[in-house]
């Protein structure tokens, strides 16, 4: 399972490449395989040209895309995104949601937790409304 956070949770003293690679290093992937997968993940979020930058040199939208690349680099079946657009303006939020749609089309289930009803109605397939931890109702778009 891959996780995306509202506040990105990136390692600011490490380059974009290392931020994404850490997930694979945790499990002890060989270096070649790490390089290949990280490059693919960054290409998917369209950030392979900023692989050697530090996160502080990137925009908020780009930082969130790095976080998404980190979440997908291990090819998880499920991606859990906690308010992934909470810190972004509308334009960037749409960009990130499109990215999630793309990931979903490739076969991963994407669970997004958000307060933005408009955005989720536009992109979501199945919506669960929660109130104080209890399921109120569900909708299929």
């Amino acid at each position, binding site marked *: 399972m891959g*996780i995306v*956070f509202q506040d990105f*949770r*990136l*390692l600011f*003293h490490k380059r974009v490449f290392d931020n994404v690679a*850490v*997930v694979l*290093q*945790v*499990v*002890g*992937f*060989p*270096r070649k395989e790490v390089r290949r997968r990280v490059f693919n993940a960054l290409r998917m979020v369209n950030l392979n040209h900023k692989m050697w930058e530090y996160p502080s040199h990137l925009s908020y939208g780009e930082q969130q895309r790095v976080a998404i690349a*980190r979440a997908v680099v291990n090819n998880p079946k499920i991606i859990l995104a906690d308010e992934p657009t909470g810190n972004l303006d509308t334009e960037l939020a749409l960009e990130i949601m499109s990215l999630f749609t793309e990931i979903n089309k490739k076969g991963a289930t994407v669970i997004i937790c958000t307060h933005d009803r408009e955005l989720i109605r536009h992109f979501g397939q199945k919506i669960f409304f929660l109130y104080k931890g209890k399921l109120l109702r569900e909708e299929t778009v």
Partner: protein
Amino acid sequence: MILQKLQHFQRETLNNLWQFRARNVFSITIICLSFLIVGIFVSLSNNLRYMAQQISKDMVVVFFLEKNMDASDRAVIEQELNNSSLVSRIQFISSEQALQNFLNKFPELEGIIENLETNPFPSSLEVTLKEKDFSYEETQPFLDKMKQISGIEDVQFNKDWVEKMQSLSRLARAVGFFLGGILILASFFIVSNVIKLNVFARKDEIEILRLVGGTNTFIRIPFLAEGIILGALGGMLSLLLLFIVIRLFPVYLGSSLGVLNELISFRYLSFSQSTAIISSGAIIGFFGSMSSLAKFLKT
């Protein structure tokens, strides 16, 4: 897979040391200064002990023998002295030799000696004691026993010196245990807290690594390695600074202190003491990292 992880840990440790170099230099400096104080103290204590050894090395007991003692009786006494574990060297001084020694030392008194009809100096055995076994509690019973042997007229032994040397050694040891203990304890807290601050400053990183699936061991190892390296580097740097202090201090003091100059001069640490300082740094670094990581890696 283990090899991959080891390579990762090695890379990670070196990267982090370089990445947080300003903070690490600060940590190393604090560790170095703490150990430098301990090192200076150990060095002074070494000097005191060295001086005590030098003085006790020359400690000689003189057994004055009866006049006209024949060689076989003297051999019995020498045999008795040789049997003692305290004796390092025995030298026989005949009465003629003793007279000659006196004249060599005090040539102006030659006239007085010439007026005497007989040689007033008795023959003697000069016994050098072993410096390792040198202790008043041990030497006194030995001397008492030797006094009982027939043929020995008198024993000359500078008891005052023995007692002074004894109290000096006791002082050096007591000061060593007391001040050394306090200093080592203080530097332990300083060093482990510096390492802790270093880990605290990176608590976000620990949290993120946990969130992306890092096991406790995976997160812990680079931090522990960094702690060990910082501690050991601090210890090494303190030895280097101590070397400089030892070289420069006598130059700074010059000869103005005279005899005191020798008393407070520094003596460099022995190999085992130097190793102890470096390994203490590494051990404190390890435990400092370990205890601060425990706060963030509770399962």
